[in-house]
């Protein structure tokens, strides 16, 4: 398990029962890092251990009496650390080994940052641990909150993008100035930051290229570009090569015109985040098999974002009940919005006209 709980071997128990280490809890963890690189200053103190052993025993007794705690020194319910005689911090594969010693990480805990997701990146962690909260990190927090990021979202922001601490404040200020020069209002900037933390790690040149690509290829005005950047900021940081593949598949393979793609973009820009291969597979199903024409697809672009695992059995169940009518002109038509979005229970009862049990049995025959 990835917790800080460990079982102690017999060899260690013998070592720790000697008078010098009588009550020290030595957390053994696998070594992944070089201990010399990640040593903190507090552990460098060296004190005579011979006298402190007896003093420590008295302290332990009184602490146990006060809190009514078990007298087993290896009780797993509390951790004790004797700083003058504590060993150096051992190397750990996890940031949990350093949390109790570094005030930096304790401040991160207060902000609510999920540090377990940084553990895979060794260089990141090594460079962040050396920093001081008040001098190195607080200016970043001030910058972001000045431009509209809510303090409740700071934790989420830094879990997604911890590399922002490795960039200089001047670069980030330049990127904000670029946005202001392109007439993004402060509420727009706040929304961009709070929905796409990776935007600020891209250079201004790259973002300029991406915005220019969108404007040229889809023939958008300035206001429309800004609207799309605020509604779906992840589109702007997407790989241009992949965007081209999606655009190619929409024009050539599916047969939409350029004006129709523009309307698709403005209606639901999240469609352009889907990889092109899955898009083509889904379009193949609901155009050739469900027989939905291009115009209804433009009205309901959520069709592109549903998985086939969800669409296919629902369509086949409607076929069995003879309710697969998607034309608005005819009576008894099925609104595609509600067919896709809602639960199985809603679908089975109100749209198909039968119960969930029948639908579940039907699913097992597909």
């Amino acid at each position: 398990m990835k917790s800080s709980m460990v079982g102690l071997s017999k060899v260690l128990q013998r070592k720790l029962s000697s008078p010098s280490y009588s009550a020290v809890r030595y957390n053994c963890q696998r070594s992944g890092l070089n201990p010399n690189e990640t040593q903190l200053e507090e552990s460098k103190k060296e004190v005579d251990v011979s006298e402190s052993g007896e003093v420590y025993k008295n302290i332990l007794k009184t602490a146990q009496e006060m809190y009514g705690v078990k007298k087993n020194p290896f009780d797993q319910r509390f951790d004790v650390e004797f700083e003058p005689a504590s060993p150096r911090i051992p190397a750990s594969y996890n940031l949990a080994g350093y949390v109790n010693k570094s005030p930096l990480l304790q401040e991160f805990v207060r902000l609510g940052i999920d540090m377990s997701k940084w553990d895979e990146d060794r260089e990141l962690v090594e460079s962040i641990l050396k920093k001081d909260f008040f001098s190195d990190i607080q200016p970043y927090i001030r910058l972001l909150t000045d431009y509209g990021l809510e303090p409740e979202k700071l934790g989420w922001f830094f879990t997604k993008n911890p590399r922002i601490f490795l960039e200089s404040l001047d670069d980030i200020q330049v990127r904000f100035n670029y946005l202001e020069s392109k007439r993004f209002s402060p509420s727009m900037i706040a929304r961009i930051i709070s929905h796409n933390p990776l935007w600020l790690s891209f250079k201004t040149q790259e973002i300029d290229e991406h915005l220019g690509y969108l404007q040229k290829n889809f023939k958008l005005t300035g206001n429309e570009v800004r609207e799309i950047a605020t509604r779906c900021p992840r589109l702007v940081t997407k790989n241009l090569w992949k965007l081209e593949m999606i655009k190619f598949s929409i024009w050539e393979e599916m047969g939409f015109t350029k004006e129709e793609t523009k309307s698709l973009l403005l209606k639901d820009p999240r469609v352009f985040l889907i990889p092109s291969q899955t898009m083509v597979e889904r379009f193949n199903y609901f155009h050739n098999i469900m027989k939905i024409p291009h115009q209804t697809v433009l009205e309901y672009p959520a069709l592109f974002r549903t998985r086939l695992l969800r669409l296919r059995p629902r369509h086949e169940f409607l076929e069995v009940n003879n309710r697969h009518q998607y034309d608005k002109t005819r009576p008894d038509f099925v609104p595609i919005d509600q067919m896709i979005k809602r639960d199985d229970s809603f679908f089975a009862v109100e749209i198909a006209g039968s119960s969930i049990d029948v639908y579940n049995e039907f699913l097992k025959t597909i």
Partner: protein
Amino acid sequence: MTSVDSCKLASKAARELTGLFCIHKPSGITTGRLKYKILHKLSHELSTKFKPQVPRQYFQIVPQPQLSSVSEHLRVKTIENTVTENLQDVENTRIPLAEVTPNSSDLVMHTDYNVIVRPNFADLPIVSGDPVLPEDFKFGFLKYLGFNTSGLLLAGINLTGRAMNVLKTMKWGRTYQVHGEFGIATDTCWSPDVQPSPFQNGVGRVLERSTYGHLTAKRLEGLLVSVQANYMKAMLMNEKIDLESEAAYELAVSGLLFPGENLSDLSDPRYEKDSQSFGITDIRLVNFKSPHFVLELQCVGDKEEWISELIHDIGLRMKTNAVCRKIICIKHGPFTNQMGLLQKHWTHAHILNAIEDANEVLLSTI
């Protein structure tokens, strides 16, 4: 509930899931991706259920060096602040204790030891990560299904290798329901409406078209009987019995025929089928509406490719072309399709129920 108790409960819950259970596999996924999905779902669920609410206490003994002249008095003080459990009020509570002093009147370096009590940050899941990971489960399938087949899959959670080997020696045969269509031949032996798998050399392109008006159900049944007879003959030859004796008849009727092992020196996958590792014990026509037909296959040692090739061969022998539309696994030994868990039911509670149901079936066979 402390963090230690929660970790123990989580590990217990992860280990209590032991046994065989049935899954309903949807078409369009590989079995490897299925395993990934199930284990990630389970680990997320269990780690949210058993989140630790109260972190452990962390005692820190800190020296306060003080230069002082002879001091013969004892300093005993009472507790000033109580221990706080809120992370926001992490004020160090200082509990000064009794001091042991020598009797001489020389200058002595006295040290005050203060005990600091605060919550242990290493127990928070933010820092140490989830208590249950998908790697903590042992998961294995008895037999695999192909990309486009759907139906029953038997899987074992936390079963040892020996238990799985015992189950594999049972050599349960599988029954399939195969939906096909006459008149078309493609790259792969699947119809062009079906999603092509990424592991196949083919796209689903139509190569030939032919007429099917001359087909009747009687002719088909005659063909299927002859196909079945050929495979049964090959399986009986392995047993080295006279084909015209009563013992051979009884064996064939009972359904306990198995194909021989692959004894050829050539380990080429092209010759696997010829060396009779694939054996059919029963074929039946269930439905026939002129181009579409439905078969029921009972076989041992099968792969998805060989079944689709079988249908291609059937089409050629009837002087037309045939293509697969669906392959559904209905039975695997004593288990049926109705016991399979759907994708929305891949949760902790549902899997426990499924294991109980499967155990009842297993006990009835033994």
